[in-house]
């Protein structure tokens, strides 16, 4: 129903490069990417707020690229919700209906109906600034859905919410979609949202849509090194494979499969185990390593290691760091299972 055809755009520090994908009727399509990937720009191009430098946008087969936003009828929910602060919640939700010149009773009925579904009936008389984050998000969704748009565009809809509200809203979002049957295009950097809500996922990196597929497909078979890195394979090791052995910077690594020639493998930092004594388990790759630096990430610590000439990153918890006395210059043993290696 929505077709984006090779859209490119340079906008401030963001770039879109040759974006092509489609959203099917009734689908919840998620565009997953780190912040700065250009996700918001893409949504605004689709909504008609930004004009693309090249490429076309089709809605139900019709070319809408040159139409202003008000002629497209796509509901857009920006990250900050953009509730109209000088209007009551009721007037916010009724805004689109009144523009459509619906009779007053009809407006009243539709607003109350959607407010019922979204469980915000008791908020209709309030001003937006008195609402909590979760309530604001519900109102923004109600305001968008009440005009029954063919497609609803959501920009990081759950990013500004606390963890409890967020989990609740993600669950309810599934119910609303069942009840109201809308189609959604939703951009986010959250893996959780992609897993919980996405029928299909597109991974966006540096302004390019690099992989589109079902959630499981994308997470288990990253199409490229960049996708793998974004999905958490922070260690990418390049070397020459000969059967089940990879030689990289003078280090010999056991592979999970037989390969030959120049290859790259990915390894998640959480799959590397650090110990002060060798673990002596036959199934593992085990190496002597020197700690280069450590990087605190809240309760987790990223340890940068050198195994010979190979730079590896490993995650350990802060308490293990303290217990093992890990600090720059310390010698440790790093080990990982061959099966943790992902061959591209």
């Amino acid at each position, binding site marked *: 129903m929505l077709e984006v055809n090779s859209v490119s755009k340079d906008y401030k520090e963001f770039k879109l490069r040759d974006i092509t994908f489609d959203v099917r009727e009734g689908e919840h399509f998620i565009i997953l990417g780190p912040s700065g990937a250009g996700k918001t720009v893409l949504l605004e191009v689709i909504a008609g*707020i930004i004009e693309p430098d090249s490429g076309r946008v089709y809605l139900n087969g019709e070319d809408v690229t040159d139409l202003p*936003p*008000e002629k497209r*009828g796509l509901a857009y929910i*920006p990250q900050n919700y*953009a509730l109209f*602060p000088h209007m009551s919640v009721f007037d916010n939700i009724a*805004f689109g209906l009144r523009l*459509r010149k619906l009779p007053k009773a009809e407006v009243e009925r539709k607003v109350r109906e959607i407010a019922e579904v979204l469980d915000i009936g008791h908020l209709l008389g309030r001003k937006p600034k008195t609402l909590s984050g979760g309530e604001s998000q519900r109102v923004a969704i109600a305001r968008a859905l009440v005009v029954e748009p063919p497609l609803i565009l959501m920009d990081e809809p759950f990013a500004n919410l606390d963890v409890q509200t967020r989990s609740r809203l993600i669950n309810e979002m599934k119910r609303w979609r069942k009840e109201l049957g809308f189609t959604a295009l939703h951009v986010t950097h959250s893996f959780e949202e992609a897993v919980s809500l996405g029928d299909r996922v597109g991974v966006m990196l540096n302004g390019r849509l690099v992989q589109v597929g079902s959630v499981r497909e994308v997470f288990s078979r990253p199409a490229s090194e960049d996708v793998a890195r974004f999905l958490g394979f922070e260690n990418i090791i390049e070397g020459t494979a000969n059967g089940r052995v990879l030689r990289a910077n003078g280090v010999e690594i056991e592979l999970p499969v037989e390969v030959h020639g120049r290859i790259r493998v990915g390894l998640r930092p959480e799959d590397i185990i650090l110990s002060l004594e060798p673990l002596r388990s036959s199934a593992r790759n085990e190496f002597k390593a020197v700690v280069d630096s450590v990087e605190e990430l809240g309760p987790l610590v990223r340890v940068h290691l050198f195994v010979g000439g190979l730079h590896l990153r490993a995650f350990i918890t802060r308490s293990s760091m303290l217990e093992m006395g890990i600090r720059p210059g310390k010698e440790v043993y790093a080990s990982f299972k061959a099966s943790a290696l992902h061959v591209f």
Partner: protein
Amino acid sequence: DYTLYLFATIGSFLVVYIALPLVVIFLKQAADLRMLIKTLHDPLVIESLRNSLLTATATALIALLFGVPLGYVLARKEFPGKSLVQALVDVPIVIPHSVVGIMLLVTFSNAILDSYTGIIAAMLFVSAPFTINAARDGFLAVDEKLEQVARTLGASRLRAFSSIALPMAFPAIASGAIMTWARAISEVGAILIVAYYPKTAQVLVMEYFNNYGLRASRPISVILVAMSLAIFVLLR
């Protein structure tokens, strides 16, 4: 902290210098209420106050009519020459007031000489920047996303402006308009050149001073100061 006390002592000179004349003129007039009451019954004074109020109000309305759209364009649109326009808007602040009068006469000659139009023309030139800048800042403070969302909900650009941007920027615009009004009613130099008649209160102050001396011009001054201060308090 001796340095700060020293600085406060030095700095208080200017504070006193501004406050003192305000206090003194009210106190001296309070000792001469008869003259104040007499002035309030002087038909020339009433007429001139009416002229000042009318022309300042007209100026503020004209500044609003043209300045609000200009402020909106400056807030929302990038265009070549924008910084030149921005600079031009601030130019009237630095031009000597008598020269403003000469420039306007040179440009519009008899069309504005000694008429209400002339008073308003002089006032508009020196005071319009306040409305333009206030409107621009007011619109800049309205998140453009709000208007964009209104448009995705079906509002035209004009409708998004009138239902979202304008009501939200209203307080800033109103305070700009009040500043414009206050600056307009404070103008003397340009009006003296362009339109000595019809007589405005601020010109009458000068005329009474020249013809009858300080005591005669003081009551009108007190009335004007009171008005200006009231407006100023309203603004804060």
